[in-house]
């Protein structure tokens, strides 16, 4: 029988202890992270410590990340159908160009396929109640697991047909290889645990546990049913996530056992994992410059620093997410982490949703503007609750007295709010304004990629300082006085 997992929650930290060193709580994983860890421990290791994504095409040249545009278009089309609009393919084509611009060329084939094959089967009728892109966060109750909180995004909840939909622009084979069915099951587990009072009003009283689960590819609908292996996958994923994230390196010349073990679980030449975009990292070639041992030593030297960057994001971001989910709304308001605003004007535009809101005072409006600056946008709950709602980054377009004009790019066809909630940007730091965590993730990724660079050409090695530098610091080259 598998060992019991008790996920460590940040009890003391919620009260505001000084953030320092190794977090005394476990990470707040996303559903995608759990899926990655279940998919391949080595991929999870690359994701957690090097910010590499096994499900995103690596180094895509040209083209757009199609997923987002595809989701946006389907959401728009289903909303239009629910409103009873007469849609024809040329009209859809026009909408795509208007909403997505140049991206439409990349998204169009998938949407066209969906239009022909999936739309007739889904039969969205007039007046259907559909909810899109809801961020859900909450406790997952599973046998042998305590305190585990997960967060994720539900692509669609169809209240009329009692369905929870996970949508992908990939085909059946790739979607199943990348465990999209498991992802949907995890989201369903979160939804089941969200109490009535933590749901948007329209979904209160619904038995979400009895909803059907469907995985929707551009050309078919795949029903998903509970499988016993999902629970064992979750168990094993949690062990990997905790091991890789929390185990400290004991000395500069070793890496933790979890990392070593995860590294061994990578692809073998005769046994390649389908759907992994990082498999080339399992077969790294060695270069003449800098030589393999130099790069190995560099990675070992930096191993704890990669983890420290992850811990930094746990203090800044995971703790913040725990606060949003575990602290009562009143306390969040008292601490200035959330503030409510009344919507006075709304204007759906092709670029997104433009909203004018009124705050209780001009000072608070100015604070919202100031808060928006570091991240170039302020996290806003447009609809629902912090445990189940539509969370978006709004761009502040202007402040006039106590009124703030915001643009939510990409928010199209959603329910429009009466009240919205501004959520303060994550920070547990005392000294200065916070840095957004994507900077730490970017640093993790860039340093790792630097350790994979090299050349076999003598002439390049002689001219390029980037190849000589690691050799000087981690090899035999001597650092000379400048």
């Amino acid at each position, binding site marked *: 029988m598998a060992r019991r997992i008790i996920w460590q929650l940040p009890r003391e930290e919620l009260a505001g202890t000084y953030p320092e060193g190794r977090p005394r709580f476990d990470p707040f994983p996303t559903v995608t992270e759990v899926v990655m860890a279940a998919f391949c421990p080595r991929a999870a290791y690359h994701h957690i410590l090097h910010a590499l994504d096994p499900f995103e095409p690596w180094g895509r040249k040209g083209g757009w990340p199609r997923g987002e545009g595809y989701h946006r278009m389907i959401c728009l089309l289903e909303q239009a159908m629910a409103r009873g609009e007469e849609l024809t393919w040329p009209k859809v084509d026009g909408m795509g160009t208007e909403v997505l611009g140049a991206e439409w060329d990349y998204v169009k084939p998938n949407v066209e396929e969906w239009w022909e094959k999936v739309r007739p089967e889904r039969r969205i009728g007039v007046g259907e109640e559909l909810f899109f892109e809801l961020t859900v966060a909450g406790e997952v109750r599973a046998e042998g697991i305590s305190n585990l909180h997960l967060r994720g995004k539900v692509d669609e909840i169809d209240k009329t047909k009692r369905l929870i939909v996970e949508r992908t622009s990939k085909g059946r084979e790739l979607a199943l290889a990348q465990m999209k069915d498991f992802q949907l099951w995890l989201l369903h587990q979160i939804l089941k645990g969200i109490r009535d009072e933590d749901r948007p009003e329209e979904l209160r009283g619904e038995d979400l546990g009895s909803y059907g689960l469907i995985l929707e590819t551009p050309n078919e609908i795949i029903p998903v049913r509970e499988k016993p292996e999902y629970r064992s996958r979750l168990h094993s994923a949690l062990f990997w996530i905790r091991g890789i994230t929390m185990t400290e390196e004991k000395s500069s010349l070793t890496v933790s056992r979890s990392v070593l073990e995860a590294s061994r679980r990578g692809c073998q030449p005769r046994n390649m994992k389908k759907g992994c975009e990082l498999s080339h990292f399992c077969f790294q070639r060695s270069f003449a410059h800098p030589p393999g041992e130099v790069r190995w030593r560099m990675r070992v030297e930096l191993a704890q*620093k990669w983890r420290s960057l992850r811990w930094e994001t746990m203090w800044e971001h995971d703790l913040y997410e725990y606060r949003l989910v575990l602290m009562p709304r009143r306390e969040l308001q008292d601490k*200035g982490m959330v503030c409510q605003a009344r919507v006075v004007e709304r204007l759906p535009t092709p670029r997104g949703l433009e909203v004018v809101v009124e705050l209780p005072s001009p000072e608070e409006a100015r604070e919202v503007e100031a808060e928006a600056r570091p991240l170039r946008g302020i996290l806003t709950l447009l609809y629902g609750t912090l445990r189940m709602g539509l969370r978006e980054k709004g761009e502040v377009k202007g402040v006039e007295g106590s009124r703030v004009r915001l643009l939510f790019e990409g928010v199209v066809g959603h329910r429009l709010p009466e009240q919205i909630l501004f959520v303060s940007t994550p920070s547990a730091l005392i000294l200065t304004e916070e840095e957004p965590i994507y900077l730490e993730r970017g640093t993790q990724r860039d340093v790792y990629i630097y350790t994979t660079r090299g050349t076999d050409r003598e002439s*390049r090695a002689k001219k*390029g300082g980037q190849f000589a530098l690691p050799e000087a610091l*981690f090899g035999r080259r001597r650092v000379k006085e*400048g």
Partner: protein
Amino acid sequence: MGWEELEERVRRWEERMNPEQRRAAEAIVRGWNEAGEGGFLLPIVDGPPGTGKTHVAAVGCAKYVLEARGRGEPEVAYLCKTNFACERAKQILLEMGFTFYPPSTTLPDAPLAVRIKAGEQAEQWEDGVVGWDNMSKLDEDFLKMHHILLVTVDSARKVHRMRRNPKMVVDEFSQVNAMDFFAAVERVCGAGGEQAPLLQGLALLGDPLQLPLVTTQSELRTNILHYLECLFHSRTLPRHRLKKQYRMNRVICEGVNMIREKAWNTYRLETAEEVANRRFEANLPGDLPGGIREALDPDHPLVLVDTSDLGDERRGFGQVAGDCSVSNPAEARLATELAWAAMRGTNPKEVRVLTPYSAQVRAIGEGLEKLAGPVGREAVSTVWRAQGQEWPCVIVSLVRSNDDRRLGFLGDEILKAQLYVAVSRAQAKLVVLAAHKRTFEGHKDMDALWETPGALKLRGKDLCR
């Protein structure tokens, strides 16, 4: 502005430089491959506050551009950790003779420098700043023709598209840790496989004693120079030391030297004659209490006020929602009163209040805003944000005041750097408010400052009367 003009200005600037500065600028020009087989040239310029390291970097970059122009590849990627440092370096390069040209203008054959910023609109050319967002092919082509690109370490990712064979200069390296440093090398010349840019040289400039990044992880606080020294088994790496400072009055510099010598065990700074007797001449209002007047007396450039008798520190909320910080209401009131008195007697922008805690920033800011309006709130900041800046009059509030001698995050190592950075921002007048006897006594750095010859020592209560 043409090449001849730049050459002439570089020559004039070099003449004004002291020998250490000239040698340091010369070192920046050299490329790593000059180290010969089996070596790697890594010029490091150790520039304490006010020693003109950014000027040295500007002269070094200009000389490199002038030299490499003959070879046809005069390209520099100038990296700083903060936007502020980047902006300052840009100003100095413009003073030196570099300029920038927006697309659609016929590009002249002249030395060009431009700052690239993440997220800004590409149209903001008029200030010599260009943003990534919506950048057109035309913009990119114009950027390729600029000889110096200034970027922050975090937004250096696109430099490789504009540079073929750059020299990389990292300014203010105290804020750049090992991860930032390697990430910067990757960003400047990573992508592109066999077509990737080739790094021609590398130089580090900064003061290793200044404040590191704000982070929860001690591993990430170590700056790149200290990291390299640990890597080489604590061997001190060869570096160019700038010893003459051009910012602080002699007595304030003595305070800085006391901290440098006794707390850091490092070399003393000399004060340039032209700044040795700087005075803060404020036309103080007649209604001031005697203590405040005495503290702002221009004859006493360094004033140390022991606030042990004023009151206790308190937990409070900082500037960022949800964070916990510490404030000291009595010290905040005193700092507000001092700053307001000084601001009334001079240009308000010449006065700055610095404190390590954001809750104290908020407390003083609110007080000063009531008295002086928005300019009052802007006159207060954390010490961290003040790095790289200087003001004629600086008031420092160290906040902690408790009988248990708890210093919180100001534990020894950070306190040293906080105190060192805070006091070295002042040109002519420095007032330090600290509960010395009650809380800080026994800490090497604070004791060293308190022993500064020529400093005027006052008690908090005397100022409040």
